[in-house]
């Protein structure tokens, strides 16, 4: 039961500090410690970063700055802040001059903002209460998917990059307990992310309490923590790799990527001492993964992403790929049409397939992207009991290819194509003498690829 060998995959604190942090040199750490340096170097290397509005080195700079020129949407943060402390986010101008509105709607005056800046300058939020500098930068407009997951703060994506390969990632969601901070040890939530697909896997809160559900403020109900697909996943991985390219002195690096609604992935900071809880929310070991990419010489961005995808992808990654393959259909496909409940069709028992509570019948169908709606042969529809009063949705005038006008019923129908259940409205037509008694129109072909091989 107690098997220590299972723990060999994990990166322990001792090992991180003694072996992997040695790959981060002093100059690299100096860059990571200063948000300003990070921003400059990353921007130079083409990585997206929030735009810098101003930087105050001392009180003089602060007093010279004209706050009234700003329109709102800015963030004030200490340059060498720690753990997300001392960050002030201003949403817009207040009602009166010299008044501003914070994210939670609270009012704050320019005087208060200045005082906050002075506190930062005095070193209230720096690690050893050393005097610090103030950064004023543009506010990130959070992607709506993430906005729905938290009330306060900015969710971000932590990607651990080692030897220029992304080895692990998690989505960090601030909670009320964490006070809007995205740091796990302050009580934020962490969801592991599959590197191949960008889909979340497991969730923890704080230092390791497992969570299974998260409240979706958009839909106003709980949803599972797994199965959330992160948008721009490839771009996020690319951004993370580019960060390590820009700061090669950090061989073992944690990149914090945020998703801007308009600008896509942007990097807030890089971390020279990434935490180890990421292993718990991914249920995977960092050590085993890093050892795998240790000797590999990464040739390009694509190579790195492919490595991450195939070395560290979850097993469901193949399933998803498989599923995508199974969406390929031929020009003639066999579909299964549902027979309405309580109807006894005049058919041989052998033709009817029973699956669960459904009864269905296999029919050959022609795929026709030239038609909008699917259509079914009148006689077949009649046999299956589909022409009963309640099944007919409405009648419509119908012009055949020869230009003659007919009146045809449109019926509600459920059928399965390649395992996908399709509930749709279908024209009833006279298809006697045609090769197939069912025709699938483009309305019901959404998400399928049609093979032209046969």
């Amino acid at each position, binding site marked *: 039961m107690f098997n220590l060998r299972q723990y060999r995959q994990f990166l322990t604190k001792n090992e991180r500090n003694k072996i992997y942090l040695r790959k981060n040199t002093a100059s690299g750490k100096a860059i990571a410690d200063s948000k300003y340096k990070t921003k400059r170097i990353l921007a130079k290397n083409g990585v997206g970063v929030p735009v810098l509005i101003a930087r105050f080195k001392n009180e003089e700079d602060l007093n010279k700055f004209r706050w009234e020129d700003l329109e709102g949407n800015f963030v004030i943060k200490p340059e060498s802040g720690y753990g997300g402390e001392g960050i002030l986010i201003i949403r817009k101008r207040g009602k009166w001059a010299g008044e501003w509105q914070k994210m939670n709607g609270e009012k704050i005056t320019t005087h208060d903002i200045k005082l906050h800046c002075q506190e930062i300058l005095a070193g209230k939020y720096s690690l050893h209460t050393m005097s610090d500098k103030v950064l004023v930068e543009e506010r990130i407009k959070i992607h709506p998917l993430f906005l729905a997951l938290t009330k306060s703060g900015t969710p971000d994506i932590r990607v651990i990059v080692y030897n220029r390969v992304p080895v692990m990632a998690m989505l960090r969601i601030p909670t009320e307990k964490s006070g809007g901070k995205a740091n796990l040890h302050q009580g934020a939530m962490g969801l592991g992310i599959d590197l191949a697909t960008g889909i979340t896997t497991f969730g923890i809160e704080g230092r390791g309490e497992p969570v299974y559900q998260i409240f979706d403020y958009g839909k106003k109900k709980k949803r599972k923590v797994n199965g959330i697909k992160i948008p721009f996943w490839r771009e996020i991985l690319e951004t993370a790799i580019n960060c390590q390219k820009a700061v090669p002195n950090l061989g073992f690096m944690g990149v914090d990527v945020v998703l801007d609604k308009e600008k896509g992935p942007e990097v807030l900071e890089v971390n020279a001492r990434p935490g180890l809880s990421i292993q*718990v929310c991914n249920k995977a070991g960092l050590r085993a993964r890093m050892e795998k990419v240790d000797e590999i010489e990464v040739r390009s961005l694509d190579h790195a992403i492919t490595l991450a995808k195939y070395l560290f*992808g979850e097993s469901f990654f193949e399933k998803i790929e498989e599923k995508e393959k199974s969406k390929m259909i031929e020009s003639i496909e066999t579909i299964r049409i549902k027979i309405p409940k309580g109807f006894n069709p005049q058919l041989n028992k052998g033709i009817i397939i029973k699956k669960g509570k459904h009864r269905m019948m296999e029919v050959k169908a022609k795929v026709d992207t030239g038609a909008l709606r699917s259509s079914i042969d009148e006689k077949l529809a009649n046999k299956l009991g589909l022409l009963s009063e309640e099944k007919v949705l409405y009648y419509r005038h119908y012009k055949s290819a020869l230009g003659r006008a007919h009146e045809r019923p449109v019926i509600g129908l459920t059928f399965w194509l390649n395992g996908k259940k399709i509930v749709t409205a279908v024209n009833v037509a006279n298809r006697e003498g045609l090769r197939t008694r069912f025709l699938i129109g483009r309305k019901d072909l959404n998400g399928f690829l049609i093979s032209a091989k046969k």
Partner: protein
Amino acid sequence: MKKLILLILIVCLLFGGKIAEARAIEVIPQVQIVENWNGLNSLRVIIGWAVERGVSTNTVVLLLLLPLIATLVSFLHYVVGLSGYGIFMPTMIAITFLATGVFGGLMLFAIILVISLLSNAVLKKLKLHFWPARAINLLMISMGIFVLMVFSSFVKWINISQISIFPILFMILLAEEFTRTQLVKSKDEAKNLMLGTMILAIVGAVVMNFDWVQGVVLKYPDLIVILVLVVNLVVGNYTGIRLSEIKRFKKAIRSKPTTR
């Protein structure tokens, strides 16, 4: 984990009760003055000389115990996973406990912490600069301790009027570290580290207070030097898992090994 910590705490307090009343270490086994110097016992010979010349035995024992306690703290940190505020803080608090007794020390600390938290709550509203706020905080603590000292000298209930400035200073440092960690990291983290510091300090104080430990330190100082060196070289190269991490990563193990 919490139960374990509680258990350790209770055990420590039971043993600590022995030194609860201790005001200062008054020990100490007589130092044997060694005449024959054979190279291996140099340290012992030097200690003999020093004591003969009037260096206090007390100080010698404490000087030798300090690295031993630090070693204990580092071992507990890297192998067991019990962490406090750095290595010096628990060591210093252990020495403090030796002077004040565990209960007296905890009491003193509790008082300082309460004053500090109260004054911080008030100072936060005043929106002062950081350092002036700290200075006022210090003033509050000083005043509080002073009042308490005067008070206790009348009441004779707990006599802290005789405590020297150093235990008080160390406790103030600890309280400051606590509020700072609370600010910089999180409340939980600060609490955990505080608990860790206390446990480490109590364990250290209990170990230091054993008569035989003090005896061994004086009789075989060379052994202590070697022990400290060896243990720290081994611990310093340890890259394995900490006991506390086993619990942490237990949740990260999948029921079926699917790691690829």
